[in-house]
């Protein structure tokens, strides 16, 4: 029956092909996902899973790994990779030198490597909200309709050529754009594959007293930023000379910075938006003119606002009260323009105020 079906449809479709049609017809070369029978796609997957294997009740109850290992008279043989008796046929120095201590040569994704970082530990709520709700809404909001057959008018080149009015123009590098030599990022139309999303968050704190007073300020700032961000901070020396604060470039370590990505970033963003920002008194929001015109938005938090993070609140007494730092938080997005970045962040729950500058 199934084999005869295509011919049945063909006999119906053939007369239709020669009937006069109101619309111009083109070759139909499209294949839909729905065309493929689900059986064919799922056949690649394993039907059996070790998790699904039935284990008898008493076998599961009697299994005690600790007791088993204690009842063992002799040690188990070492792993093939570390045992000198079993040499691998081809010399793999990296693999063979592996031992139980953290190895500096193993790849960072290997738990025996020093660079290995465990995680993720959870699926952050902010990330789930982005994926389930915000991304598709941004795609709908940013859709720009162009009629069929539309080709956008050609744009002037981003770098200007010399007009060859002088013989010295030959082989000169191209000129930058008019009105400043900053080349702005190209903003492409937002499609399904370039929906703006948050890439990373930077928490930066400049502590001027670290140079004037003593380094305790920097230590406390580092601890506070580390506590709220869950990543190790890096310290930075001043690049600029500030005579009034007696800061010399390259001499004084005055700043700490933490860079958040992935799961940590979404946890921080969730805390910031749902716990800290709503509790700031008389806070108008992030200034509408903030941003570096390539999709990264920065705002600052006062020391009393930083103290509102739950990680600091829980043992507030342990921080010297005057030394809790303020900080600058930069939300780096994959948007190419501030307008798109603001659309994303306001959907995530960051309020903006004042004149919005795109």
């Amino acid at each position, binding site marked *: 029956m199934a084999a005869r*079906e*295509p011919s*049945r*449809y*063909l006999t*119906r*479709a*053939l007369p*239709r*092909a*020669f009937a006069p049609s*109101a*619309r*111009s*017809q*083109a*070759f*139909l*070369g*499209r*294949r*839909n996902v*729905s*065309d*493929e*029978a689900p059986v064919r796609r799922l056949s690649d997957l394993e039907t059996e899973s070790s*998790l699904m294997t039935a*284990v008898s009740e008493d076998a*599961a109850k009697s*299994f005690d*790994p*600790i007791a088993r*290992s204690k009842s063992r008279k002799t040690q188990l043989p070492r792993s093939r990779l570390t045992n000198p008796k079993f040499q691998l046929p081809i010399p793999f120095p990296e693999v063979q030198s592996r031992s139980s201590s953290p190895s500096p040569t193993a790849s960072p994704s290997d*738990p025996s490597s020093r660079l*290995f970082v*465990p*995680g*993720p*530990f*959870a*699926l952050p*709520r902010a990330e*789930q*909200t982005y*994926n*389930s*709700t915000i991304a*598709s*809404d941004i795609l*709908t*909001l940013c*859709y720009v*309709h162009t*009629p*069929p*057959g539309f*080709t956008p008018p050609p744009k002037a080149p981003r770098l200007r050529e010399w007009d060859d009015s002088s013989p010295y123009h030959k082989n000169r590098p191209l000129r930058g754009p008019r009105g400043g030599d900053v080349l702005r990022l190209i903003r492409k139309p937002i499609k399904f594959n370039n929906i703006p999303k948050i890439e990373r968050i930077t928490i930066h704190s400049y502590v001027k007293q670290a140079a004037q007073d003593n380094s305790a300020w920097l230590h406390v700032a580092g601890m506070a930023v580390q506590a709220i961000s869950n990543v190790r901070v890096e310290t930075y020396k001043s690049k600029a000379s500030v005579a009034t604060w007696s800061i010399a470039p390259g001499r004084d370590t005055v700043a700490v910075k933490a860079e958040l990505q992935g799961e940590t970033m979404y946890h921080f963003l969730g805390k910031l938006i749902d716990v800290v920002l709503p509790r700031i008194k008389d806070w108008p929001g992030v200034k509408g003119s903030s941003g570096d015109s390539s999709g990264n938005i920065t705002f600052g938090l006062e020391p009393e606002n930083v103290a509102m993070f739950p990680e600091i609140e829980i*043992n507030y*007494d*342990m921080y010297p009260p005057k030394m809790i730092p303020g900080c600058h938080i930069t939300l780096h997005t994959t948007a190419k323009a501030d307008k798109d970045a603001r659309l994303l962040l306001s959907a995530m729950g960051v309020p903006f105020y004042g004149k919005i500058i795109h």
Partner: protein
Amino acid sequence: MATGTNGARRIASLLRPSRLDFGVCRSCQETVGRRNYATAATESTSASTSPSTSSVNPVYTINAGVVLSRPPQITRDLEPFEKAYYFYQKRLNERLALPFTKYFYFKRGTPLDEDWKRKVKERLTPARDIGKYNAYANDAWNDELLLGAQESEPEHLVEKLVQDAESTANATSQDTSKKEEIPRPHSRVTEADKKGDYKSLNRLLSRTLYLLVQSKEGYWKFPSSPVEAEETIRQAAERTLAQSAGVNMNTWMVGFHPAGHHVYNNRKPHIDEATGVANYGEKTFFLKSRIMAGQADLSNSLQKLQDFKWVSKDEISQFVTQKYYSSIKNMLADR
């Protein structure tokens, strides 16, 4: 069956005279008669001399539809593999991370410190959510959960955290007569879930719910109505929503563009007796909308709708026709 029909269509389309233009996508070629400036100019000059074979554009009713949705309110349920994976990573972290710096968090000799010591003695680890496990002992290799263990379940985790907070509150409070109670989080399964109340917005908190209405003929569909003259599609969608499901809803229209469309072809074209225009069916363009507050109310509905339902993407296919579902399914969120 779908494979068979499409294969036949593809063969049939090969037999047709092809007027393929690679600058235009296939669906646009089908719907829009191709007219660029050059052909328009030649047509206008030739029209006076010889009557050209002009193509007839079939007349369809244009409808504006509204996909009104309530976004997920809570996180999704984790798969068993995800639970096991996250739990494994937590214990791995306990083995690899630096030891917990206790004296930064607990001052020596305080009631909190005493409470802390008691708890760590009990569970052998500073972490509250990995069960009883000592990451620095000789048998730290035994970090896998045994069959039937509850430690990786989120409910178990929440219960442990709440109990921990309660015991801290009880151990450190001055008043020993009163027992502290920490409120548990609300259940992920609501009353509406248990009753199967399709009219409630509290059902399926971790999924997106969509508003379906039943027309007077008995078909389930998204609210829609014909676009009137001098009206944009967005205005038409807003009017449709107010006329079909009432004004007792705080909604937000997502943008000005439709997110999907559905074409319904009449079996035979309906000929309008007054004008003689043949109507081939209707084309519905759906705009996305989000509900913030309120509830649908059909009592003042101008479209004589019978009923409404809030359903998730998986449930929609039970109520609507197969053709309708295949044209709307790609604009609905997976979760």
